């Protein structure tokens, strides 16, 4: 809960910038169209209207049914693919050449995206303007590359494609879409890196890997619809979007299950609180802090997820105790007990058969940093992070004031280099400072 509120507040300036950026794109497109309309018409627009309307409706519908992925961007695959196809359409069935220019694509897409936002506004669901703006920019890139940029003798792909074999055209369409979507991911990664204070290259890599499958499906579908319009006309748009519809369905199901898996782990992390072994909120505070530090230290999204699960479950080993440790603070327990609890926890988690990496992290969560330095032991970064976070939260408590904070930091600093990894402690200091400011 706290994370969400904090993210919203932090993100506000970024959201504003994105909104203004999208608005400039849209208004710019409209202005160019108005300016062009004053010139004598070079091609008939009227026969294109049914196609433009179908694209418009499909983009609106696609925007309404967004796929909300936990901790990742919200995508609208059907809308994006339809807009890409609109950007790369070359001909209509009734022989009308589709020689409209890029501004039309941008204007229609942006208006459709805005209309698609309406249900979210009515239902007061959070809107991510950053996702919207980067998506619109991606479409703009595709439209400009396909319809405006001169590639040979001052002629664009649209002008040239008549003399190309169709499979070459298909290849060019896929490549342009891939490029445009990569630009989109680049923008999103920049925003996310700024938001989570993670290194940019790592965020880009994560976003790109996460989007890779969907990007491939989107770019091929864009080409598919654009090419299908020649024989089938406007009906190609819904028909050729069908395979992508399956993809969207599958991705939705997958993100739904990811969300509930995370809920499951979160709920299970509270088992020790219900049993009176640990202080309420300890596990989720340690998880939140670990997450921020993991991102700060440039861990990949996969590793961050394992770190989060391990942090949530780091005290699960305590359920094997008959008598709870006072206050659940493992940092105050004897080292041998600490190790046993960590070991029991790792064993419990290992029983699941699917969280082996988390078990490894839990096993090593009490190991001193000195083991790495002196014995060259391989200690997972995640374990070092949890060790520091756990110690800090045990000592600072649930409602730390400045005095308790600095007392906790002081005790951690006493164990610097011996008990705790200096790099991790440094990250803790940074993350805590950010939290204050």
């Amino acid at each position: 809960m706290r994370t969400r509120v904090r993210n919203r507040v932090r993100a506000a300036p970024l959201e504003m910038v994105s909104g203004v950026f999208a608005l400039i794109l849209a208004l710019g497109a409209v202005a160019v169209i108005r300016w062009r309309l004053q010139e004598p018409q070079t091609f008939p627009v009227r026969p294109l209207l049914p196609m433009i309307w179908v694209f418009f409706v499909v983009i609106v519908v696609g925007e309404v049914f967004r796929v909300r992925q936990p901790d990742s961007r919200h995508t609208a695959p059907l809308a994006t693919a339809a807009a890409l196809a609109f950007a790369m359409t070359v001909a209509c069935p009734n022989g009308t050449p589709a020689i409209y220019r890029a501004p039309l694509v941008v204007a229609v897409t942006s208006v459709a995206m805005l209309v698609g936002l309406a249900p979210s506004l009515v239902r007061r669901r959070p809107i991510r303007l950053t996702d919207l703006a980067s998506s619109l920019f991606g479409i703009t890139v595709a439209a400009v590359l396909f319809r405006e940029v001169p590639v040979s003798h001052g002629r664009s792909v649209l002008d040239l494609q008549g003399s190309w074999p169709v499979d070459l055209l298909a290849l060019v369409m896929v490549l342009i879409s891939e490029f445009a979507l990569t630009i989109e991911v680049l923008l999103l990664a920049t925003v996310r890196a700024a938001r989570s204070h993670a290194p940019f290259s790592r965020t880009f890599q994560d976003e790109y890997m996460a989007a890779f499958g969907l990007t491939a499906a989107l770019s091929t579908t864009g080409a598919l619809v654009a090419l299908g319009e020649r024989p089938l006309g406007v009906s190609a748009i819904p028909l050729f979007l069908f395979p992508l519809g399956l993809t969207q369905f599958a991705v939705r199901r997958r993100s739904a299950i990811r969300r509930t898996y995370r809920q499951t782990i979160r709920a299970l992390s509270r088992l020790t609180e219900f049993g009176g072994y640990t202080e309420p909120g300890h596990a989720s505070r340690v998880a939140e802090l670990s997450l921020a530090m993991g991102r700060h230290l440039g861990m990949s999204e996969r590793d961050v997820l394992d770190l989060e699960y391990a942090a949530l479950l780091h005290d699960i080993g305590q359920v094997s105790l008959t008598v709870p440790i006072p206050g659940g603070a493992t940092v105050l327990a004897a080292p041998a007990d600490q190790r046993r609890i960590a070991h029991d926890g790792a064993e419990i988690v290992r029983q699941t058969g699917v969280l082996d990496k988390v078990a490894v992290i839990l096993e090593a969560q009490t190991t001193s940093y000195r083991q790495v330095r002196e014995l060259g032991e391989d200690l997972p970064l995640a374990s070092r992070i949890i060790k520091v976070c756990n110690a800090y939260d045990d000592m600072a408590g649930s409602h730390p004031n400045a005095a308790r904070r600095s007392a906790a930091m002081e005790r951690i600093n006493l164990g610097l280099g011996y008990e705790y990894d200096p790099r991790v402690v440094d990250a803790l200091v940074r993350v805590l400072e950010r939290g204050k400011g």
Partner: protein
Amino acid sequence: MNDTGPKGRSQAVGVPSIAVSAYIAAVLLLAVGLAVLAWRTYPLNSSGSLSNNDSVTLVVLAVLGVLGSASQERNVGGHITFSFASIILLAAVALTGPLGAAAVGAMTCLVVFDKQRVEVRVFNIGMASAIGAAGGFVYLIAGGATEVSAVGGLGYLMLHVGLPLLLADVSICLFNAVILSGIVRLTKGTPMRRFILGMLETSGPAYIGYGLIGFLFVILWVPAGVGPASAVLILAPLFVARWAFVQYGDEQRARERTLSALVAAVETKDLYTRGHSERVASLCDLMAGSLTLSHQETEALRFAGILHDIGKLAIPTRVLRKADRLSDTDLDRIATHAARGVEMVRDIEFLADSTEAILHHHERMDGLGYPGGLRGEQTPLLARIIAVADAFDSLTTSRFHREPHTVQEALAELHKRAGTQLDPSIVAALERGLVRHDWEPTRLEPALMVTAGRAFDHDDPAASDLIAGHAGTEQAP
């Protein structure tokens, strides 16, 4: 044809019987017959020899078919099967005619990367080739265009490609089910009718999707002029969808395993309940079968079974392991575990259907249960099922004062309590379920018994009476 997958492969163990061999031979003969007929009536083109273009089409389709069948038919979770080979076969029907489709079908099953018994492979080749040819004939009889390239609008393409392809699709689905039902009848004894209906129900809807995608494939290949490259464009989104479905299945399993393993760990707190949740969950599964619950209800019931006692974690160990007679306060404390359990799992969305069952699994038919004092059918069905499973497992597990009841003794005890504590129809369902599945009473190790001592077992039907009586006296004044 892909549906031969696990079904076709897993059967036939050992040397095939004469009947099976004869059936395989008959299918093979049918395939050859259809191929010859196709050759005579609809040769690949008028001159009877392959043109360069046609052979390219044929080879590309065959390669795609092989790749498709190699990558498929792991059940991708939640009743969803994906078959690229079926789509390729349909495309072959329209693009290359009956003979070509037969060839593509046969080649798809000829190259198989995983180990497969010879007779199974022969059967698959025969069947795929036969249904390919049959689909090709249906397509042509229904007025399908042989030269799809002839330019025409949407109407023409729908009428002369779309509709015939849909009919070919339906007949391929039917032929596939019929031919398979024969071999399954011979090897497993499943009645043909039941097998065919079952298969149409599970993979029928998918075939409609294959039909549509096959149609798009053909349109893109010829009228849109993309040629073999259309395979990439059409199949890429499907591959991504399949990949996401596989991940979905994996994560679903991971979620369930995580939940039950961690719950099992927590159970160590109360020694008597070790393994109890798992056993209750499997008893629930068994009853879900004889009560014909929906898929969704069965899922919710299983999770409720795993989690029904999770609230006991919130009860001090000292109360759970108390050897003396429990005071009324202690009984009240134990009775809170149902509500505490709901508190713990409230935030997990997919357990929404299970929470009611967790809350009310100690209600009684006579209204003396806890926490709501619900009477008869007021108690949700799933909760009544768990109540029966709970009591049955408690009776068939050893306690310090007695050996575990046998299944018969336990059932007799449950019958005695049907109507007052338990729902008679559900006790009957348990009995029906136990006819089909064996149940082994749980003997706890002596060492564990010593540690567990004389601890109170709240699931023992006698405990239910105790708490009911206690609640009754409390309400009386």
